């Protein structure tokens, strides 16, 4: 997996929509906070809160023009819907949290 530094930035597909500019900026500015919260829940093992956050990111990712982000959050939510489960599931969760965090790190306004 390429590191966030070398991977290309992710820009909203709705970036050219004047209605959306302000919202996208707000969303992007709030991403570091969300990532911290996400990692926090994961480290504390609070899977229900983690799921809630993943659910929100799934919806907003798509809605704000960051489809890959939304899809990654959706995958995480899907796995968590069957948690807490065997070890294998938690490994999947760990991998999906990483994937989501890496995608978030690449998100830019423009």
């Amino acid at each position, binding site marked *: 997996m390429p590191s966030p530094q070398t991977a290309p930035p992710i820009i909203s597909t709705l970036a050219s929509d004047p*209605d959306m500019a302000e919202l996208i900026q707000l969303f992007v500015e709030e991403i570091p906070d969300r990532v911290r919260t996400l990692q926090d829940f994961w480290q504390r093992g609070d899977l229900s809160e983690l799921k*809630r956050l993943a659910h929100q990111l799934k919806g*907003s990712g798509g809605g704000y023009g960051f*489809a890959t982000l939304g899809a990654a959050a959706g995958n995480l939510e899907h796995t968590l819907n069957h948690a807490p489960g065997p070890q294998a599931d938690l490994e999947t969760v760990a991998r999906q949290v990483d994937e989501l965090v890496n995608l978030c790190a690449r998100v830019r306004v423009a």
Partner: protein
Amino acid sequence: MANTEHKPVVLLVDDSIDVHRLLQARLRHEQIELVGTTKSAEAVDMARQHKPSTILLDLDMPGMDGFEVLRALKDDSAANSIPIIVLSGKAGSEDKVTAFDLGATDYVTKPFDLAELRARLRAALRLDHLLRLLAERAEVDGLTGLGNRAAFDKRWAEKVAESRRYGTPLSLAMLDIDYFKRINDTYGHPAGDQVLVGLAQSLQSESRSPDIACRYGGEEFALIMPSTGPAEAQIVAERIRAALAAQIWSRHPDSPITVSVGLVGSSGPIGDVTPDRWLEAADRNLYAAKRAGRNRCITADLAHAIPGAAKAA
């Protein structure tokens, strides 16, 4: 309250603040007022408070999910006719079928296609407009413009329930035009119609703003007088009776028209009397007024008209 600016209110129920922001921006140019909640359990209260013209309802919410909210909205007599557009991340037909079966009007999948969402919202608002129009029309008497029998039944039941709950006075007058059949037979149906409209006008001009006048059927009318005891109600009824008797009719200027009135009112707790029994008591007084020579109002206190009814209070 709702609709003060004549802009239809749209209620958004979605647990994600991002979706609220998104739709605020996306629907900025629509002629609507968007209100919202991120807590699904608040949806029904919000719907009752704001009386929205359409509800946008997310399915996938923590706690009470969208299907449960949908069920609760459809079970609520004040909210059950509001068009609901379900918003969901799932495009599968199973959820769609469930949503429609539970009474949803439409279904939009996330992420939203802006043009589609706006078009579907407009369609739901049109539906709401027609439903409101239909509900209004269904309760208006075409000739007199007063509430019809259906409107009376509904409002009377509401007012009796209110009076029972709060112990407030309430009166009901039933009015019947004297010798109406003779007017129709002698001067023709247009003359009869003119008399019906004339009584409706007297009812409206002589009653007070909280009073509810309805055409009960044929030549029989009803006047609900909230927060009014029998003595005060009789004054209103007498005013109506006198106003009708004073009207001059273009089709038969030498034949004045009179009305008989049966009135039953309560100044205090009404006990467990039903709307139907109260109405029957007022009707009995109306026929007593007819037998006593017409063109008069016979009034009774509820406690006397229906002995025992008020004791339970």
